């Protein structure tokens, strides 16, 4: 057992941390989020140059990382800055390609920051069910024709390419029969409606009307395993992001308690607040530990248990910490101008990505009953 990071991974974390601290103040973040594409292309480019994208992928596809701990340390730093650049979409779409094999040039462009991808998988009725795919793919000639609707696609309105899941066989929630297709965002019949999210990111509703797709990713009907692979990495990533946001929320609250005076003393002198702070800090350490466990098991047979444990804890304790950070600040935390509210929004909204607290608690229960 060893709980220290390798030197190279520590360097990655330090570099990303420095970038966020020095070049990504909250005002910059708001400016980026307010752009039409919801982020800054320049910043994305310089982050790619720093190798922050490559760190998410293994060497055999041209990256120099891709392990659970690489994803964890990087997204923790991104979370500290509420970074809006499309790392999550890139991680997930890229993981599909990397796992499926092939598509070397596209991955290379993506790692270089020249091309962006998004995974268009969720649908209006799918909620958190990863096997729910009503979109259809019908063979025609040497291609397929796609019809259906994709929902809440992360960074779906700015990606150059979409990885679209569609069904060639099976019922609407079967795991088999799902295929993944690479579709240019500007392909005919692809109707993309982008929107902002409450926490300052971008998603899209995508309608597919007789879209011709020629590039099948992986084997026909075997797409669900690729999706699960991508969602597992996405889940780990957003939990690490949440930890980063939680760290900042707690630090800001600590500073506020030390400096804000009421009744003639810093409010940090009030024991009721002190004890609540102590509990928040304990929960933060628990989340950090669950993240370590999940990252270490990302490619093991215990992956799902540890990811669900982590996601449940992030949903449960994350909500508590976010709400307490606001409550202990008081009114100022309710304002747009003050940063802590934006961190709270991100922490809470992460509960809505890839299954919330209860969804993952239920998954733990099912895994336990299968084991028993």
């Amino acid at each position, binding site marked *: 057992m060893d709980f220290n990071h390798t030197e190279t991974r520590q360097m990655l974390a330090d570099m990303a941390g420095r970038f966020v601290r020095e070049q990504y103040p909250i005002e910059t973040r708001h400016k980026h989020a307010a752009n039409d594409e919801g982020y800054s292309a320049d910043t994305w480019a310089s982050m790619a140059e720093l190798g922050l994208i490559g760190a998410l992928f293994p060497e055999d596809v041209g990256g120099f990382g891709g392990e659970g701990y690489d994803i964890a340390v990087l997204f923790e730093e991104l979370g500290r800055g509420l970074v809006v650049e499309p790392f999550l979409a890139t991680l997930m779409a890229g993981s599909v390609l990397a796992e499926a094999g092939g598509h070397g040039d596209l991955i290379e462009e993506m790692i270089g920051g020249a091309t962006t991808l998004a995974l268009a998988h969720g649908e209006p009725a799918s909620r958190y069910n990863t096997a729910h795919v009503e979109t259809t793919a019908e063979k025609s000639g040497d291609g397929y024709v796609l019809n259906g609707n994709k929902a809440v696609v992360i960074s779906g309105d700015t990606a150059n390419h979409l990885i679209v899941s569609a069904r060639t066989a099976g019922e609407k929630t079967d795991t088999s029969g799902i295929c993944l297709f690479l579709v240019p965002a500007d392909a005919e019949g692809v109707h993309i409606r982008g*929107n902002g*999210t*409450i926490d300052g990111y971008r998603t899209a509703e995508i309608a597919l009307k007789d879209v011709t797709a020629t590039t099948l990713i992986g084997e026909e009907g075997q797409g669900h395993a690729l999706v699960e692979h991508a969602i597992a990495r996405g889940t780990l990533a957003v939990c690490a992001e949440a930890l980063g946001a939680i760290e900042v929320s707690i630090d800001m609250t600590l500073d506020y308690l030390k400096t804000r005076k009421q009744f003639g003393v810093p409010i940090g002198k009030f024991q009721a607040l002190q004890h609540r702070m102590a509990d928040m800090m304990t929960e933060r350490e628990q989340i950090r530990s669950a993240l370590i466990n999940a990252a270490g098991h990302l490619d093991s047979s215990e992956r799902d248990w540890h990811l669900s444990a982590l996601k449940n804890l992030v949903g449960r304790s994350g909500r508590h910490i976010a709400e307490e950070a606001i409550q202990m600040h*008081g009114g100022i935390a309710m304002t747009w101008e003050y940063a802590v509210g934006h961190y709270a929004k991100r922490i809470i909204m992460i509960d*809505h990505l890839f299954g*919330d607290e*209860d969804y993952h608690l239920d998954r733990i229960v099912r895994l336990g009953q299968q084991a028993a």
Partner: protein
Amino acid sequence: MDLNYTPEEQAFQQEIRTFFETKLPKSLSDKVKQKKRMSKGDMEQYHTVLNEAGYLNAHWPVEFGGKGWNAIQRDIFDVEGNAAAAPRTVPFGLNMLAPVLMAFGSKEQQDHYLPRIVDGTDWWCQGYSEPGSGSDLASLKMTAERQGDHYVVNGQKTWTTLGQHANWIFCLVRTSKEGKPQEGISFLLIDMNSPGVEVRPIILLEGTHEVNEVWFTDVKVPVENLVGEENKGWTYAKYLLVHERSGIAGVGDAMASIDHLKHIARDQTQNGKPLAEDPYFAARLSEIEIDLSAMRTTNMRIMQAATDGAPPGPEVSMLKIKGTVLRQSINDLTRRALGPYAMPFVSEALDDGWNGEPVGPDYANPMAADYFNHRKTSIYGGSNEIQRNIISKMMMGL
């Protein structure tokens, strides 16, 4: 003990139901159902509708033109109004200033201001909090200096809800630096059209504009605008906090919010079944309904005790805590119920005249914003921490 309504109470309930069915403009109830932002015009329209029916100030004592509604009647009106998706009335004049004027205002002030509150001539806002004061209200710094027949007011108020619509503001101001901070505070009525008054918006974390900063620079206020005695303002403000118990629990709002949540939970699907049948969701919802059922009775008990003349105790603080936490838990469960569609947010869709295509189910867009916005309820009006201080002080005398 009797939990049933008397025939009179049943008749009253029917009267109120009929009123909302027949007199509440659909344009308003639609907006409430869709959780759209109320314009100034909307609020004025509802004010007029209530006034025409004589319900606007029915909770006022008869001698001031009210009907002297008791606790049960007010509860019925609250519940029926929320069930009918009626907007909220703006409380600052009707429920906050009025009781103070009735108790401590001069005959002239009562005769002048109370009718103008009712007919809508004056839109009042509250000037208590200051940037530095927070929960320590008595530390307020805004000064009013007596100069002949007027005060000269300088300073800043904040968290002024709907101040952008108001033409009058009632303020706690410092008229003396002698003695304990509480002792130098006066209760002053200020015309917001006076030179030197400036209102600046504060945007909340979810992007809405409902509160403001109000700045005062050498604002001249006639001495007749002083309520009661100079340096006694703290007593008047406190009087309000302990005597204005009704509605603090938000029972009607909670009941309506639960109905809305159930509607969403029947529409959403989890594991192939309606979310409403998911055991974890159902358990969370049921716990909330259990707590609400108890709180409604707690509320009625306290209201009736108040009507029977019981001295104000820590119960009001209990209602404030329980009422806010409970409604926040409904907001929380509602945003959970939406799944991924809690994330997309089109702010413009909450304003008049937007007719774009909604993202996801039509009920989804406002709910996450609602959850974040309502975090304020456990902070303002005396934070829940302050309420716990009050309870323990009263119970332990320490």
